[in-house]
Protein backbone atom coordinates (compact mmCIF):
# COMPACT_ATOMS: atom_id res chain seq x y z
CA UNK A 1 0.00 0.00 0.00
CA UNK A 2 1.26 3.41 -0.88
CA UNK A 3 1.04 5.61 2.16
CA UNK A 4 0.73 8.60 -0.15
CA UNK A 5 -2.78 7.57 -1.10
CA UNK A 6 -3.92 6.44 2.32
CA UNK A 7 -5.58 9.28 4.21
CA UNK A 8 -6.81 6.83 6.82
CA UNK A 9 -3.26 5.98 7.73
CA UNK A 10 -2.81 9.45 9.15
CA UNK A 11 -5.27 8.76 12.01
CA UNK A 12 -6.30 11.88 13.87
CA UNK A 13 -4.53 14.10 11.36
CA UNK A 14 -7.69 13.55 9.26
CA UNK A 15 -9.48 16.19 11.34
CA UNK A 16 -6.65 18.66 10.91
CA UNK A 17 -6.69 18.02 7.19
CA UNK A 18 -10.43 18.61 7.03
CA UNK A 19 -9.98 21.85 8.94
CA UNK A 20 -7.33 22.97 6.48
CA UNK A 21 -9.59 22.18 3.52
CA UNK A 22 -12.46 24.04 5.15
CA UNK A 23 -10.25 27.03 5.81
CA UNK A 24 -8.98 27.15 2.23
CA UNK A 25 -12.52 26.80 0.90
CA UNK A 26 -13.67 29.58 3.17
CA UNK A 27 -10.89 31.84 1.91
CA UNK A 28 -11.93 31.15 -1.67
CA UNK A 29 -15.66 31.28 -1.14
CA UNK A 30 -15.93 35.02 -1.81
CA UNK A 31 -14.37 34.57 -5.22
CA UNK A 32 -16.52 31.52 -5.94
CA UNK A 33 -19.63 33.45 -5.04
CA UNK A 34 -18.67 36.32 -7.34
CA UNK A 35 -18.03 33.84 -10.16
CA UNK A 36 -21.38 32.17 -9.69
CA UNK A 37 -23.57 35.21 -9.12
CA UNK A 38 -21.87 38.06 -10.98
CA UNK A 39 -20.35 36.21 -13.90
CA UNK A 40 -22.49 33.12 -14.39
CA UNK A 41 -25.61 35.02 -13.26
CA UNK A 42 -26.92 32.43 -10.86
CA UNK A 43 -29.38 33.53 -8.22
CA UNK A 44 -28.22 33.75 -4.61
CA UNK A 45 -30.05 30.58 -3.63
CA UNK A 46 -28.74 28.65 -6.65
CA UNK A 47 -25.21 29.79 -5.84
CA UNK A 48 -25.60 28.65 -2.25
CA UNK A 49 -26.68 25.18 -3.38
CA UNK A 50 -23.76 24.89 -5.77
CA UNK A 51 -21.36 26.06 -3.10
CA UNK A 52 -22.50 23.21 -0.82
CA UNK A 53 -21.75 20.66 -3.52
CA UNK A 54 -18.48 22.35 -4.34
CA UNK A 55 -17.34 22.09 -0.74
CA UNK A 56 -18.10 18.36 -0.50
CA UNK A 57 -16.40 17.79 -3.86
CA UNK A 58 -13.34 19.81 -2.86
CA UNK A 59 -12.96 17.95 0.42
CA UNK A 60 -12.91 14.63 -1.39
CA UNK A 61 -10.74 16.03 -4.18
CA UNK A 62 -8.08 16.97 -1.65
CA UNK A 63 -7.94 13.35 -0.47
CA UNK A 64 -7.01 12.15 -3.96
CA UNK A 65 -3.39 11.10 -4.52
CA UNK A 66 -1.27 13.86 -5.99
CA UNK A 67 -2.80 16.74 -4.06
CA UNK A 68 -0.10 17.91 -1.71
CA UNK A 69 -2.14 20.64 -0.03
CA UNK A 70 -5.60 22.14 -0.12
CA UNK A 71 -4.16 25.59 -0.77
CA UNK A 72 -2.38 24.41 -3.90
CA UNK A 73 -5.57 22.72 -5.07
CA UNK A 74 -7.50 26.01 -5.16
CA UNK A 75 -7.16 26.51 -8.93
CA UNK A 76 -8.93 23.16 -9.44
CA UNK A 77 -11.71 24.31 -7.14
CA UNK A 78 -12.24 27.27 -9.44
CA UNK A 79 -12.23 25.03 -12.52
CA UNK A 80 -14.88 22.84 -10.91
CA UNK A 81 -16.86 25.95 -9.94
CA UNK A 82 -16.88 27.29 -13.51
CA UNK A 83 -17.62 23.89 -15.00
CA UNK A 84 -20.53 23.26 -12.69
CA UNK A 85 -21.97 26.76 -13.16
CA UNK A 86 -21.65 26.51 -16.95
CA UNK A 87 -23.36 23.13 -17.13
CA UNK A 88 -26.14 24.32 -14.88
CA UNK A 89 -26.77 27.54 -16.83
CA UNK A 90 -26.59 25.73 -20.17
CA UNK A 91 -29.17 23.27 -18.89
CA UNK A 92 -31.51 26.07 -17.82
CA UNK A 93 -31.05 27.99 -21.08
CA UNK A 94 -31.51 24.84 -23.13
CA UNK A 95 -34.72 23.96 -21.39
CA UNK A 96 -36.06 27.49 -22.00
CA UNK A 97 -36.51 28.22 -18.31
CA UNK A 98 -34.15 31.17 -18.51
CA UNK A 99 -33.11 33.66 -21.15
CA UNK A 100 -29.58 34.79 -21.73
CA UNK A 101 -27.84 38.09 -22.48
CA UNK A 102 -24.80 38.61 -24.66
CA UNK A 103 -22.36 38.74 -21.75
CA UNK A 104 -23.53 35.39 -20.35
CA UNK A 105 -23.55 33.80 -23.82
CA UNK A 106 -19.93 34.84 -24.35
CA UNK A 107 -18.96 33.44 -20.97
CA UNK A 108 -20.74 30.13 -21.60
CA UNK A 109 -18.93 29.84 -24.95
CA UNK A 110 -15.60 29.90 -23.15
CA UNK A 111 -14.02 26.79 -21.72
CA UNK A 112 -14.39 26.63 -17.91
CA UNK A 113 -10.65 26.04 -17.67
CA UNK A 114 -9.94 29.40 -19.34
CA UNK A 115 -12.46 31.24 -17.22
CA UNK A 116 -11.05 29.62 -14.09
CA UNK A 117 -7.57 30.67 -15.16
CA UNK A 118 -8.73 34.29 -15.13
CA UNK A 119 -10.21 33.80 -11.69
CA UNK A 120 -6.99 32.16 -10.54
CA UNK A 121 -5.20 35.36 -11.43
CA UNK A 122 -7.56 37.10 -9.05
CA UNK A 123 -6.54 34.52 -6.48
CA UNK A 124 -2.89 35.35 -7.02
CA UNK A 125 -3.73 39.00 -6.57
CA UNK A 126 -5.51 38.11 -3.37
CA UNK A 127 -2.48 36.19 -2.10
CA UNK A 128 -0.27 39.12 -3.00
CA UNK A 129 -2.45 41.43 -0.94
CA UNK A 130 -2.52 39.07 2.04
CA UNK A 131 0.93 37.47 2.07
CA UNK A 132 0.17 35.34 5.13
CA UNK A 133 -2.16 33.27 2.92
CA UNK A 134 0.48 32.05 0.50
Amino acid at each position, binding site marked *: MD*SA*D*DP*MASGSSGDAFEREVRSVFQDTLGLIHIALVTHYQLSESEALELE*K*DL*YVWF*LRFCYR*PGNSSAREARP*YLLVACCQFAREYQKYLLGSGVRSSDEKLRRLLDREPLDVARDFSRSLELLSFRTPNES
Partner: protein
Amino acid sequence: MSLSAKILPFPTRSGNAWLSPKQAEVAAGDFLSIPVEKRSDAERQRFLCSPDILLAICIVLKRNRDLSPGPVLKEAVDIYRWISRPDCDLGLFDERDYFLGETALIAGGVCRQLGGREEAFLWLDRAEAGFRHTVNPAPGLANVAYARLALRFEMGRYQDVLELTPSLEASFTKLRMELEASKCCLLLAMTLKQTGENARALELLDGLEEKPALKADQFLRARILSEVGDLHQFEGRLDLAMVAFQKAVSLLEPDTLSAVRADLQLFVGGILKAEGRLEDARDTFRAAQRTYLALEMRPQVAYLHLVIAETLLGLKRDREAEWEILSALPAIEEMKMAPEGLAAVALLHESVRQRRTDPATLRQLQTLLQSTS
Protein backbone atom coordinates in the same frame (compact mmCIF):
# COMPACT_ATOMS: atom_id res chain seq x y z
CA MET B 1 -17.36 43.24 -1.63
CA SER B 2 -15.57 41.01 0.82
CA LEU B 3 -13.69 38.10 -0.74
CA SER B 4 -14.20 35.78 2.20
CA ALA B 5 -17.27 34.54 3.96
CA LYS B 6 -18.26 32.36 6.88
CA ILE B 7 -19.06 28.76 6.03
CA LEU B 8 -22.24 27.49 7.56
CA PRO B 9 -22.53 23.77 8.32
CA PHE B 10 -23.98 22.66 4.99
CA PRO B 11 -27.06 20.46 4.92
CA THR B 12 -25.85 18.16 2.14
CA ARG B 13 -28.06 16.46 -0.42
CA SER B 14 -28.79 12.78 -0.12
CA GLY B 15 -26.15 10.76 -1.93
CA ASN B 16 -23.63 13.55 -1.54
CA ALA B 17 -23.33 13.31 2.21
CA TRP B 18 -19.79 13.57 3.49
CA LEU B 19 -18.57 10.61 5.54
CA SER B 20 -15.41 10.92 7.58
CA PRO B 21 -12.51 8.69 6.45
CA LYS B 22 -13.09 6.53 9.52
CA GLN B 23 -16.81 6.05 8.80
CA ALA B 24 -16.05 5.37 5.17
CA GLU B 25 -13.39 2.81 6.11
CA VAL B 26 -15.90 0.90 8.24
CA ALA B 27 -18.43 0.94 5.39
CA ALA B 28 -15.72 -0.19 2.93
CA GLY B 29 -14.94 -3.12 5.24
CA ASP B 30 -18.63 -4.04 5.32
CA PHE B 31 -18.83 -3.95 1.53
CA LEU B 32 -15.68 -5.98 0.97
CA SER B 33 -16.79 -8.60 3.50
CA ILE B 34 -19.63 -9.54 1.14
CA PRO B 35 -18.28 -12.09 -1.39
CA VAL B 36 -18.41 -10.68 -4.94
CA GLU B 37 -20.61 -13.52 -6.21
CA LYS B 38 -23.10 -13.05 -3.38
CA ARG B 39 -23.28 -9.27 -3.67
CA SER B 40 -26.66 -7.90 -4.67
CA ASP B 41 -27.20 -4.89 -6.90
CA ALA B 42 -28.93 -3.18 -4.00
CA GLU B 43 -25.77 -3.57 -1.92
CA ARG B 44 -23.62 -2.28 -4.78
CA GLN B 45 -25.93 0.70 -5.12
CA ARG B 46 -25.81 1.43 -1.40
CA PHE B 47 -22.04 1.32 -1.03
CA LEU B 48 -20.63 2.19 -4.44
CA CYS B 49 -22.72 5.28 -5.02
CA SER B 50 -21.01 6.99 -2.12
CA PRO B 51 -17.71 8.54 -3.29
CA ASP B 52 -16.43 8.50 0.30
CA ILE B 53 -16.93 4.75 0.63
CA LEU B 54 -15.54 4.20 -2.84
CA LEU B 55 -12.43 6.18 -1.95
CA ALA B 56 -11.98 4.02 1.17
CA ILE B 57 -12.53 0.83 -0.86
CA CYS B 58 -9.83 1.91 -3.33
CA ILE B 59 -7.44 2.52 -0.43
CA VAL B 60 -8.10 -0.96 0.98
CA LEU B 61 -7.64 -2.56 -2.45
CA LYS B 62 -4.33 -0.76 -2.99
CA ARG B 63 -3.19 -1.83 0.46
CA ASN B 64 -3.98 -5.47 -0.34
CA ARG B 65 -2.70 -5.73 -3.89
CA ASP B 66 0.67 -7.13 -2.77
CA LEU B 67 -0.94 -9.53 -0.32
CA SER B 68 -3.81 -10.96 -2.35
CA PRO B 69 -3.75 -9.80 -5.98
CA GLY B 70 -6.35 -12.35 -7.14
CA PRO B 71 -9.19 -11.21 -4.88
CA VAL B 72 -8.22 -7.55 -5.44
CA LEU B 73 -8.59 -8.01 -9.20
CA LYS B 74 -12.02 -9.58 -8.73
CA GLU B 75 -13.16 -6.65 -6.59
CA ALA B 76 -11.72 -3.97 -8.86
CA VAL B 77 -13.35 -5.48 -11.94
CA ASP B 78 -16.70 -5.84 -10.16
CA ILE B 79 -16.63 -2.22 -8.99
CA TYR B 80 -15.49 -0.87 -12.36
CA ARG B 81 -18.28 -2.74 -14.16
CA TRP B 82 -20.85 -1.36 -11.75
CA ILE B 83 -19.81 2.27 -11.93
CA SER B 84 -19.24 2.20 -15.70
CA ARG B 85 -22.93 1.53 -16.36
CA PRO B 86 -24.27 4.53 -18.32
CA ASP B 87 -27.05 5.10 -15.79
CA CYS B 88 -24.75 5.00 -12.75
CA ASP B 89 -25.25 8.19 -10.79
CA LEU B 90 -22.08 8.62 -8.79
CA GLY B 91 -20.81 11.68 -6.97
CA LEU B 92 -20.22 15.20 -8.18
CA PHE B 93 -18.48 16.72 -11.20
CA ASP B 94 -15.65 14.44 -12.25
CA GLU B 95 -15.95 11.85 -9.47
CA ARG B 96 -17.36 9.04 -11.60
CA ASP B 97 -14.52 9.45 -14.12
CA TYR B 98 -12.00 9.59 -11.30
CA PHE B 99 -13.21 6.31 -9.79
CA LEU B 100 -13.35 4.65 -13.20
CA GLY B 101 -9.69 5.64 -13.51
CA GLU B 102 -8.76 4.46 -10.03
CA THR B 103 -10.47 1.07 -10.20
CA ALA B 104 -9.15 0.39 -13.72
CA LEU B 105 -5.64 1.35 -12.57
CA ILE B 106 -5.88 -1.09 -9.66
CA ALA B 107 -7.17 -3.81 -11.99
CA GLY B 108 -4.36 -3.12 -14.46
CA GLY B 109 -1.72 -3.31 -11.75
CA VAL B 110 -2.89 -6.63 -10.35
CA CYS B 111 -3.43 -8.09 -13.84
CA ARG B 112 0.27 -7.43 -14.43
CA GLN B 113 1.18 -9.16 -11.17
CA LEU B 114 -0.96 -12.13 -12.15
CA GLY B 115 0.57 -12.42 -15.60
CA GLY B 116 -2.29 -11.07 -17.72
CA ARG B 117 -0.24 -8.60 -19.73
CA GLU B 118 -2.65 -7.94 -22.61
CA GLU B 119 -5.50 -7.58 -20.14
CA ALA B 120 -3.35 -5.23 -18.06
CA PHE B 121 -2.76 -2.93 -21.05
CA LEU B 122 -6.50 -2.81 -21.71
CA TRP B 123 -7.22 -1.91 -18.09
CA LEU B 124 -4.59 0.81 -18.21
CA ASP B 125 -6.22 2.23 -21.34
CA ARG B 126 -9.49 2.30 -19.42
CA ALA B 127 -7.76 4.01 -16.49
CA GLU B 128 -6.35 6.64 -18.80
CA ALA B 129 -9.79 7.24 -20.32
CA GLY B 130 -11.20 7.82 -16.84
CA PHE B 131 -8.46 10.13 -15.57
CA ARG B 132 -8.41 12.15 -18.78
CA HIS B 133 -11.85 13.53 -17.92
CA THR B 134 -11.01 14.63 -14.40
CA VAL B 135 -10.32 18.18 -13.29
CA ASN B 136 -6.70 17.39 -12.42
CA PRO B 137 -5.66 14.49 -14.66
CA ALA B 138 -1.88 14.74 -14.20
CA PRO B 139 -1.43 12.54 -11.08
CA GLY B 140 -3.66 9.75 -12.38
CA LEU B 141 -2.12 9.79 -15.85
CA ALA B 142 1.36 9.71 -14.36
CA ASN B 143 0.39 6.63 -12.34
CA VAL B 144 -0.92 4.99 -15.51
CA ALA B 145 2.36 5.81 -17.27
CA TYR B 146 4.25 4.16 -14.41
CA ALA B 147 2.11 1.01 -14.62
CA ARG B 148 2.78 0.85 -18.37
CA LEU B 149 6.53 1.16 -17.80
CA ALA B 150 6.40 -1.62 -15.21
CA LEU B 151 4.67 -3.79 -17.83
CA ARG B 152 7.34 -2.95 -20.39
CA PHE B 153 9.97 -3.95 -17.85
CA GLU B 154 8.27 -7.30 -17.42
CA MET B 155 8.21 -7.77 -21.16
CA GLY B 156 11.94 -7.20 -21.30
CA ARG B 157 11.74 -3.86 -23.11
CA TYR B 158 14.55 -2.42 -21.05
CA GLN B 159 15.62 0.30 -23.48
CA ASP B 160 12.08 1.74 -23.44
CA VAL B 161 12.12 1.79 -19.64
CA LEU B 162 15.55 3.38 -19.51
CA GLU B 163 14.46 6.08 -21.93
CA LEU B 164 11.09 6.95 -20.40
CA THR B 165 11.47 6.48 -16.64
CA PRO B 166 13.61 9.56 -15.87
CA SER B 167 11.00 11.84 -17.46
CA LEU B 168 8.23 10.19 -15.46
CA GLU B 169 10.25 10.49 -12.27
CA ALA B 170 10.62 14.22 -12.99
CA SER B 171 6.84 14.48 -13.45
CA PHE B 172 6.21 12.82 -10.11
CA THR B 173 8.72 15.12 -8.44
CA LYS B 174 7.04 18.13 -10.01
CA LEU B 175 3.69 16.88 -8.74
CA ARG B 176 5.28 16.38 -5.30
CA MET B 177 4.48 12.67 -5.44
CA GLU B 178 7.68 11.65 -3.69
CA LEU B 179 6.70 8.05 -3.11
CA GLU B 180 5.89 7.50 -6.78
CA ALA B 181 9.13 9.23 -7.77
CA SER B 182 10.97 6.72 -5.55
CA LYS B 183 9.15 3.87 -7.28
CA CYS B 184 10.49 5.20 -10.60
CA CYS B 185 13.96 5.22 -9.12
CA LEU B 186 13.54 1.59 -8.08
CA LEU B 187 12.22 0.60 -11.51
CA LEU B 188 15.17 2.31 -13.15
CA ALA B 189 17.61 0.50 -10.87
CA MET B 190 15.93 -2.85 -11.59
CA THR B 191 16.23 -2.16 -15.31
CA LEU B 192 19.89 -1.23 -14.97
CA LYS B 193 20.40 -4.52 -13.14
CA GLN B 194 18.92 -6.33 -16.13
CA THR B 195 21.27 -4.52 -18.49
CA GLY B 196 24.27 -5.34 -16.31
CA GLU B 197 24.85 -1.84 -14.95
CA ASN B 198 24.89 -2.94 -11.33
CA ALA B 199 27.07 -0.13 -10.01
CA ARG B 200 24.75 2.55 -11.41
CA ALA B 201 21.74 0.67 -10.05
CA LEU B 202 23.27 0.54 -6.57
CA GLU B 203 24.05 4.24 -6.77
CA LEU B 204 20.39 4.99 -7.51
CA LEU B 205 19.15 2.89 -4.61
CA ASP B 206 21.66 4.20 -2.08
CA GLY B 207 19.66 5.48 0.91
CA LEU B 208 16.41 5.49 -1.06
CA GLU B 209 14.54 3.38 1.51
CA GLU B 210 15.28 5.97 4.19
CA LYS B 211 13.46 8.81 2.45
CA PRO B 212 10.76 10.29 4.72
CA ALA B 213 8.09 9.82 2.03
CA LEU B 214 8.58 6.06 2.25
CA LYS B 215 8.41 5.85 6.02
CA ALA B 216 4.92 4.34 6.12
CA ASP B 217 5.37 2.02 3.16
CA GLN B 218 7.17 -1.00 4.56
CA PHE B 219 6.56 -3.05 1.42
CA LEU B 220 8.30 -0.55 -0.80
CA ARG B 221 11.20 -0.16 1.63
CA ALA B 222 11.58 -3.94 1.82
CA ARG B 223 11.43 -4.16 -1.96
CA ILE B 224 14.20 -1.57 -2.32
CA LEU B 225 16.37 -3.39 0.21
CA SER B 226 15.79 -6.72 -1.50
CA GLU B 227 17.00 -5.21 -4.79
CA VAL B 228 20.04 -3.73 -3.04
CA GLY B 229 20.80 -7.21 -1.67
CA ASP B 230 20.37 -8.82 -5.06
CA LEU B 231 22.71 -6.28 -6.66
CA HIS B 232 25.38 -6.95 -4.02
CA GLN B 233 24.91 -10.63 -4.69
CA PHE B 234 25.52 -10.12 -8.41
CA GLU B 235 28.70 -8.23 -7.54
CA GLY B 236 29.85 -11.12 -5.35
CA ARG B 237 29.45 -9.25 -2.06
CA LEU B 238 27.38 -11.95 -0.42
CA ASP B 239 27.85 -10.61 3.12
CA LEU B 240 26.44 -7.20 2.16
CA ALA B 241 23.65 -8.93 0.29
CA MET B 242 22.61 -10.87 3.39
CA VAL B 243 22.68 -7.71 5.52
CA ALA B 244 20.28 -6.00 3.10
CA PHE B 245 18.00 -9.05 2.95
CA GLN B 246 17.85 -9.30 6.74
CA LYS B 247 16.97 -5.63 6.98
CA ALA B 248 14.25 -6.16 4.37
CA VAL B 249 12.81 -9.18 6.23
CA SER B 250 12.68 -7.16 9.46
CA LEU B 251 10.30 -4.73 7.75
CA LEU B 252 7.79 -7.43 6.83
CA GLU B 253 5.20 -8.89 9.15
CA PRO B 254 6.15 -12.46 10.05
CA ASP B 255 3.99 -15.21 8.51
CA THR B 256 2.32 -12.83 6.07
CA LEU B 257 2.60 -13.87 2.46
CA SER B 258 3.51 -11.10 0.05
CA ALA B 259 5.22 -10.59 -3.28
CA VAL B 260 8.16 -8.94 -1.52
CA ARG B 261 8.62 -11.95 0.76
CA ALA B 262 8.62 -14.25 -2.27
CA ASP B 263 11.16 -12.00 -4.03
CA LEU B 264 13.37 -12.18 -0.97
CA GLN B 265 13.16 -15.96 -0.87
CA LEU B 266 14.13 -16.00 -4.54
CA PHE B 267 17.12 -13.73 -3.97
CA VAL B 268 18.32 -15.69 -0.92
CA GLY B 269 18.07 -18.85 -3.04
CA GLY B 270 20.36 -17.08 -5.50
CA ILE B 271 22.94 -16.50 -2.79
CA LEU B 272 22.81 -20.14 -1.69
CA LYS B 273 23.27 -21.18 -5.29
CA ALA B 274 26.22 -18.83 -5.70
CA GLU B 275 27.76 -20.40 -2.59
CA GLY B 276 27.37 -23.82 -4.18
CA ARG B 277 24.74 -24.96 -1.66
CA LEU B 278 22.52 -26.26 -4.43
CA GLU B 279 20.14 -28.38 -2.37
CA ASP B 280 19.47 -25.52 0.06
CA ALA B 281 19.06 -23.21 -2.92
CA ARG B 282 16.53 -25.57 -4.52
CA ASP B 283 14.50 -25.73 -1.29
CA THR B 284 14.54 -21.94 -0.94
CA PHE B 285 13.48 -21.53 -4.57
CA ARG B 286 10.62 -23.94 -3.92
CA ALA B 287 9.57 -21.90 -0.90
CA ALA B 288 9.53 -18.77 -3.08
CA GLN B 289 7.51 -20.64 -5.69
CA ARG B 290 4.95 -21.70 -3.08
CA THR B 291 4.58 -18.10 -1.97
CA TYR B 292 4.08 -16.88 -5.54
CA LEU B 293 1.62 -19.71 -6.12
CA ALA B 294 -0.40 -18.74 -3.05
CA LEU B 295 -0.51 -15.18 -4.43
CA GLU B 296 -1.58 -16.52 -7.86
CA MET B 297 1.43 -14.83 -9.51
CA ARG B 298 1.75 -17.17 -12.47
CA PRO B 299 4.68 -15.60 -14.35
CA GLN B 300 6.85 -15.87 -11.26
CA VAL B 301 5.72 -19.46 -10.63
CA ALA B 302 6.74 -20.35 -14.20
CA TYR B 303 10.03 -18.49 -13.83
CA LEU B 304 10.79 -20.39 -10.63
CA HIS B 305 10.21 -23.70 -12.42
CA LEU B 306 13.06 -22.76 -14.75
CA VAL B 307 15.31 -21.55 -11.93
CA ILE B 308 14.70 -24.81 -10.07
CA ALA B 309 15.34 -26.77 -13.27
CA GLU B 310 18.69 -25.07 -13.68
CA THR B 311 19.58 -25.84 -10.06
CA LEU B 312 18.56 -29.47 -10.54
CA LEU B 313 20.77 -29.68 -13.61
CA GLY B 314 23.63 -28.52 -11.40
CA LEU B 315 22.74 -31.35 -9.02
CA LYS B 316 22.83 -33.79 -11.98
CA ARG B 317 19.13 -34.51 -11.56
CA ASP B 318 18.34 -34.18 -15.25
CA ARG B 319 15.06 -36.06 -15.15
CA GLU B 320 13.63 -33.85 -12.37
CA ALA B 321 14.87 -30.78 -14.25
CA GLU B 322 12.90 -31.89 -17.30
CA TRP B 323 9.78 -32.26 -15.19
CA GLU B 324 10.24 -28.74 -13.87
CA ILE B 325 10.57 -27.39 -17.41
CA LEU B 326 7.56 -29.33 -18.59
CA SER B 327 5.52 -27.89 -15.71
CA ALA B 328 6.45 -24.36 -16.77
CA LEU B 329 5.81 -24.61 -20.51
CA PRO B 330 1.98 -24.45 -20.59
CA ALA B 331 1.90 -21.29 -18.48
CA ILE B 332 4.69 -19.68 -20.51
CA GLU B 333 2.91 -20.41 -23.77
CA GLU B 334 -0.39 -19.17 -22.38
CA MET B 335 1.16 -15.88 -21.29
CA LYS B 336 1.78 -14.94 -24.93
CA MET B 337 5.45 -14.19 -24.65
CA ALA B 338 7.45 -12.23 -27.19
CA PRO B 339 8.45 -14.09 -30.42
CA GLU B 340 11.96 -14.72 -29.11
CA GLY B 341 10.41 -16.21 -25.96
CA LEU B 342 8.17 -18.49 -27.99
CA ALA B 343 11.15 -19.63 -30.04
CA ALA B 344 13.02 -20.44 -26.84
CA VAL B 345 10.01 -22.37 -25.53
CA ALA B 346 9.90 -24.40 -28.75
CA LEU B 347 13.61 -25.16 -28.51
CA LEU B 348 13.30 -26.19 -24.90
CA HIS B 349 10.29 -28.33 -25.71
CA GLU B 350 12.35 -30.13 -28.31
CA SER B 351 15.40 -30.54 -26.10
CA VAL B 352 13.26 -31.99 -23.31
CA ARG B 353 11.63 -34.34 -25.81
CA GLN B 354 15.06 -35.55 -26.86
CA ARG B 355 16.10 -35.80 -23.17
CA ARG B 356 18.99 -33.31 -23.71
CA THR B 357 18.14 -30.12 -21.85
CA ASP B 358 19.97 -27.15 -23.29
CA PRO B 359 21.15 -24.88 -20.43
CA ALA B 360 21.65 -21.91 -22.78
CA THR B 361 18.03 -21.99 -23.93
CA LEU B 362 16.91 -22.43 -20.34
CA ARG B 363 18.83 -19.30 -19.33
CA GLN B 364 17.43 -17.34 -22.28
CA LEU B 365 13.90 -18.17 -21.20
CA GLN B 366 14.66 -17.35 -17.60
CA THR B 367 15.86 -13.91 -18.62
CA LEU B 368 12.72 -13.33 -20.65
CA LEU B 369 10.54 -14.42 -17.79
CA GLN B 370 12.36 -12.53 -15.08
CA SER B 371 9.97 -10.00 -13.79
CA THR B 372 9.03 -7.64 -11.10
CA SER B 373 5.80 -7.28 -9.20
